[in-house]
């Protein structure tokens, strides 16, 4: 069995080795270039029509509709009215940690144990994953690589998606500690007679999930209290790596990412803001609209993991998941939108934002949810997230509305000013078979 998988994998990876290997990370950008005649979506809600941006040494040096461009220069690209966006940021992802969801050998997202604050996703990030380039093709240039877990899962890191290895990819390292909260919701057990299709009984096994979950959360508080005390302990007899891994939380160098869905979970999570003053992000948050004002009050931000979802309950508004973003916006909550669909591996991020725009958000607000606001939550807004002076030139150019699959068509992308190769495995395979059927002329050098 194991052998079969291994050999199958080997065969598979050999067959597309060529595909991935033709895509080289771009070289460091030096000097200046201009992108002109674009509809520039800044990422902060503003739009510049017929705008120009100037990039120098990987940074945005100027942006506006009145930037002078040297005449006859060969470093000017006329975008001919195309839309220009900040590089999209995928706020939660197992990118580079899981290659094929059902093949165990390719799974590096979930470590054993319930208290893994020192586990770091960045060291397992495979910058040669075949998935990466398919995301870039849809405008995603940065991703937060998040470990999965049963409770305290480890730290996430933000990576840029054009790199030789994880060290090159690292954009902000270990900045988020991820806690997967217990559900605090009773679940039925299937104790019925065989062949039955009804719902099982509640509370048959495993005791009271609410009580147990709350105890677990109390245990986590106790852990943080000790971790805090440990910092000031002068006569440490033993080094505690777990305590050391969370020092950043107290120093506000890290954020606490609470993976939580229900109002009750979120209310419990607020304790960590109140007692420890942590900067907190709720991940998932499909029920966050119910406590939006409290989130605002406590400066807690939200990553909506998947607007393309079914409503939680049958009684809910059929479009509730589509409307949640607008409700958070109305309450003034800082939020971003993610796409954690394991079938499509995140490439529909922009369309999840588009749906939020269809159901109450302004289009530029929806864009901010996957650019500037995501950057703010991730703590990288000083470097990226918007087309603003001094930031990294992380830029996407599309010949149509990036949020609408009907028009979205990424024609160019830049990471830190480097123009990246938008070839991906899918384009190459498409190309290969279009040639088989003579649907297009043979590609050069193919």
């Amino acid at each position, binding site marked *: 069995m194991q052998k079969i998988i291994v050999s199958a994998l080997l065969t598979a990876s050999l067959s597309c080795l060529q595909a991935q290997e033709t895509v080289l990370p771009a070289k460091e950008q030096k000097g200046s270039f201009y992108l002109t005649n674009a509809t520039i979506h800044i990422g902060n809600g503003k739009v510049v029509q017929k705008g120009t941006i100037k990039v120098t040494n990987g940074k945005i040096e100027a942006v506006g509709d009145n930037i002078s461009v040297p005449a006859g220069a060969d470093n000017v690209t006329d975008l001919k009215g195309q839309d220009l966006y900040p590089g999209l940021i995928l706020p939660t992802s197992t990118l580079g940690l899981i290659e094929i969801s059902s*093949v165990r050998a390719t799974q590096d997202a979930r470590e054993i144990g319930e208290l893994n604050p020192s586990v770091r996703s960045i060291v397992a990030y495979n910058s040669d994953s075949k998935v990466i380039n398919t995301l870039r093709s849809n405008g995603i240039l940065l991703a937060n690589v998040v470990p999965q877990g049963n409770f305290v899962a480890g730290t996430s890191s933000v990576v840029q998606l054009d790199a030789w290895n994880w060290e090159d990819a690292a954009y902000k390292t270990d900045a988020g500690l991820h806690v997967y909260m217990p559900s605090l919701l009773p679940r039925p057990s299937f104790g019925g007679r065989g062949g039955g299709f009804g719902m099982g009984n509640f509370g048959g096994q495993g005791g009271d999930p609410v009580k147990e979950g709350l105890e677990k959360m109390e245990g986590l508080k106790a852990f943080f209290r000790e971790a805090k005390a440990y910092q000031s302990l002068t006569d440490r007899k033993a080094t505690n790596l777990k305590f050391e891994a969370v020092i950043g939380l107290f120093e506000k160098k890290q954020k606490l990412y609470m993976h939580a869905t229900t109002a009750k979970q979120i209310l419990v999570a607020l304790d960590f803001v109140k007692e420890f003053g942590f900067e907190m992000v709720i991940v998932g948050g499909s029920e966050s609209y119910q406590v939006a004002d409290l989130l605002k009050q406590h400066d807690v931000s939200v990553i909506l993991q998947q607007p393309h979802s079914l409503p939680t309950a049958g009684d809910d508004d059929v479009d509730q998941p589509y409307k949640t973003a607008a409700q958070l916006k109305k309450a003034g909550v800082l939020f971003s939108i993610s796409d954690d669909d394991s079938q499509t591996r995140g490439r529909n991020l922009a369309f999840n934002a588009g749906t939020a725009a269809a159901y109450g958000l302004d289009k530029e607000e929806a864009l901010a949810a996957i650019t500037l606001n995501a950057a703010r939550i991730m703590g990288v807004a000083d470097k990226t997230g918007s087309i603003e002076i001094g930031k990294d030139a992380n830029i996407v150019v599309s010949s149509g509305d990036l949020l609408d699959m009907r028009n979205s068509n990424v024609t160019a992308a830049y990471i830190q000013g480097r123009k990246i190769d938008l070839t991906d495995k899918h384009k190459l395979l498409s190309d290969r078979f279009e040639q088989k059927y003579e649907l297009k002329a043979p590609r050069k050098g193919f």
Partner: protein
Amino acid sequence: MRFYKLFIWMLLLSATYAVQGQPTFPENGVADPRSGFFVFTHATIVKDAGNTLQDATLVIRDGRILAIGSGLSVPVGAVEIDCKGKFIYPSFIDLYADYGIPSSQQRPAGQPFDFFRSAQLETNQKGPYGWNQAVRSEQQAHTVFTSDESKAKALRELGFGTVLSHIRDGIARGTGTLVTLANEKENLIILKDRATAHYSFNKGSSTQSYPSSMMGNISLLRQTYLDAQWYKSQPQEEGYNMTLKTWNENQSLPQIFEANDKWNDLRASRIGKEFGVQFILKAGQNEYQRISEMKGLGTSFILPLNFPAAQDVEDPAEARFVALNDMKHWELAPSQPAAFEKAGIPFALTTADLSSVSQFARNLQKAREYGLSDTKIIEALTKTPAEILGVYDRVGSLEKGKLANFLITTGPLFQDKTVLLQNWIQGIKYAIKEDAGNVAGTYQLVVTTQGGKENYTLEVKSAGAATLYAKDTLLSRFSFDGKQLKIYYAPAPVRQRPTMDSTRARGAGMGARFSGMAEQPLPLTATRLSGVANGNEWNGVGSDSLGNPLTWTATLVKQGAITIDSVRKKDLPAVGKVVYPFLPFGWEEGQQPRSETILIRNATVWTNEAQGVIKNADVLLKDGKIAAVGQGLAVPTDANVIDGTGKHVTAGIIDEHSHIAAASINEGGQSVTSEVRISDNLNPDDINIYRQLSGGVTTSHILHGSANVIGGQTQLIKLRWGANDEGLKFANWPGQIKFALGENVKRSASPNGNNRYPDTRMGVEQVLIDAFTRAKDYQKQWQDFETARKAFEASKNKKLLTAPVAPRRDLELDALVEILEKRRFITCHSYVQSEINGAMEVANKMGYTVNTFTHILEGYKVADKMKEHGSFASTFSDWWAYKMEVEDAIPYNAAIMHKVGLTVAINSDDAEMARRLNQEAAKVVKYGGVTEEEALKMVTLNPAKMLHVADRVGSLLPGKDADVVVWSDHPLSIYAKSLYTIVDGTIYFDRKKDEELQQKVDQERTRLVRKMNGEKRSGAPVIPAQPSYQLMHSCHDHGHSHGLLVIDIE
């Protein structure tokens, strides 16, 4: 005088005797034969629900009724029992009692199906049984029946005299036996050994993999009917098959099916109808939700009385996850028996499904409060069950010659103060409660202690309640059982009101009573009296507060008045309405949308026909069909006019691959299960029908899952929200069947490996070849038989010839023959090029076509071969990398296949994505540059083609079904919303109306949460809030999470 009568009653109570001993059994001692000759006089006798005799006489002897009527003379030699003031009723019958089946027969349940567990493909039952462990028609309850006095007593106390018992194990459960609840040897109490035959949809203790689904259960039953019929021809190759033999023997009995659910009632009845069997249905709790369908079955029901408990929904965060329909069900379930009565559906009542039979009286009372009449209750507990069993000549009413099974009560049954005194079974008396007579009155109590006499006044209200006075009221307890009595008393604590209601909450009568009052505890130093009634005087002994002995006497000084229940006509409880379906957003009766004439004006119309996209055009829908498409159509007078300005109109979306609205999806028990049918187990109570309407879906192809190579027969449905299972079906549709290849069928994801053939793609090919080879042989067998049969029919000297014997009908092979004869089409789950080519090669060899390759994510690699084979392709827009075999899946797949010339559809295979299929189609423009019109066809016209219904749906062509969507925006845009989704000219989703429905949902929730909270505050028992999880089926192909309250199952 009054006490004299009472005394006689008490004597009777103590006079237990045995019926005549069995002649074949030796007697250890002196024989004591008695004839049980009794005459009950001056009674109110309720012979049956419709006949009551006043001041009547009942004569019984040898366990039977000898005579019954008014003005009968007392026969010589009978013991007379004066029943003045008493009522006599026929005792009750329970058709679903759990009585007398020893625990050794109650084998543990087999584990629920688990896709990953190793398969048990054959029966592990030793002996000459049939092939499937879940078919247990050889079970005979009477052969294991063992009387059980403790259980019998509990049932007798409720008034039952006769019960039907069977072994509740298996899909076929063998025969039930009718017994009385007399405490006698089994020989004497079995009234009918093989009284009934029993069936269910629960495989019980069977550990065999098949069946693992509702569809499989149904197919197994159908196949067994066929096999049993065939077995009658004594086929040599089958040998001796005890299961089939007994199955046949059981057919002449009343057939009882434990369905336990409204849709299962319909499913069971359909099986019955196919094989000429009228099942009596053991119901569940929710049949009231489809009462007209129940009525339409024209059969009798056995109704349990287990009503859902109120939930503790005081915490809004917990109430949030309790669904409206669960709360509505809590409110409405007790009205089920009344709903059956109102609808005129015959039914019996049972103690089944209650966690304790003692709840029966209380729940019966509740059903009564919700409108069930007393007459109907009596009928449902006596005549109806007797008639169902065909034993009304023996039990079920009080008639000459019938069994002496009757109840003696103090008043009309089911009234609060009525006490069931005795339950006579087969002429044997079982005392239930002692008759305290009219004990009420004022007594002079004299207690003689060492210190002298103390005088008290005892005011007795009933056998269980009295007040004791000296100067002040004392704290006391009183009880009297008709013979013995007890009195405890102590000085009352200051300022505390004494209460003495010792019957509190015990349900002394048939009606349950509750009292919120807490009893004052008696101090340990209370004086204790006990004694015996002797006529008008009570005498006894006792012990005072210091423990000194005493004697006492109580003498009646004033008789109390007999209190008679005032029969109050209570108003029916106010409850919400049943909605269709029984879900949020369901329609109230009469509010269901109807087909109407609709004119959509001035819209951008995507015809999917030669006219292409027409701007500023109108679409007219009439009589459920598209009547006209064009510019400037005249407005019919009765038309509902929809302003389409700035809007787009398309044909309704058709999802080629869906798993909604079914009770089960995967029959994973075997590698070939072509006999199972999704159509057998549609589930109209799926909220996803409504949600998908909101996304413009009008037709969905409900596929069997991909657990096996040859899966089950699929069903095309229209999303007619509120319709029943038959009403969902797409009429006159040539059937399809699901096949599957690759990882799922070889169970690659199973952590424990796989023991079910095939384990490789090589084996998959062999399974296909083997199945179709068998199908061809089978086809020929039948052809040969038909030829021989015709020759035989035509022959003039038939007597000299042997009539040809029909081959065994095999439902599995029937479906495959349909494929070979092009009457059924394949949709084949497939991923990688090798298996796709392999499947086509087998098809070519065997002479069939793979109609549709579904998923087909490597279709772009073999599109030319698929075109040559004549296949359609139905795929995802952009899924990949969730398992090994989709590693080369690319979003350009659909475009390439389209460009090579295949008819391509984009499907969902997912309840969530189905709501956005228009946008999924848009991705085919994005990835591969297909035109927008062609892309839209991939979710409308193209799936219609591969489903062979393109003449009916898929485009806006006059004459086609009026399945239409009005979009707010360009239909391929992320910003597009369905404003109206119309099926057959009926607006099933209207975005404005949806807001109203949502408000109703919220209001109804608020009302019910308050009502449940009221229940809790009134002191009624509540259970913790139970989140309403939804089971969601998938083809077991991907790990798409559907949220907090969804449990993904096979």
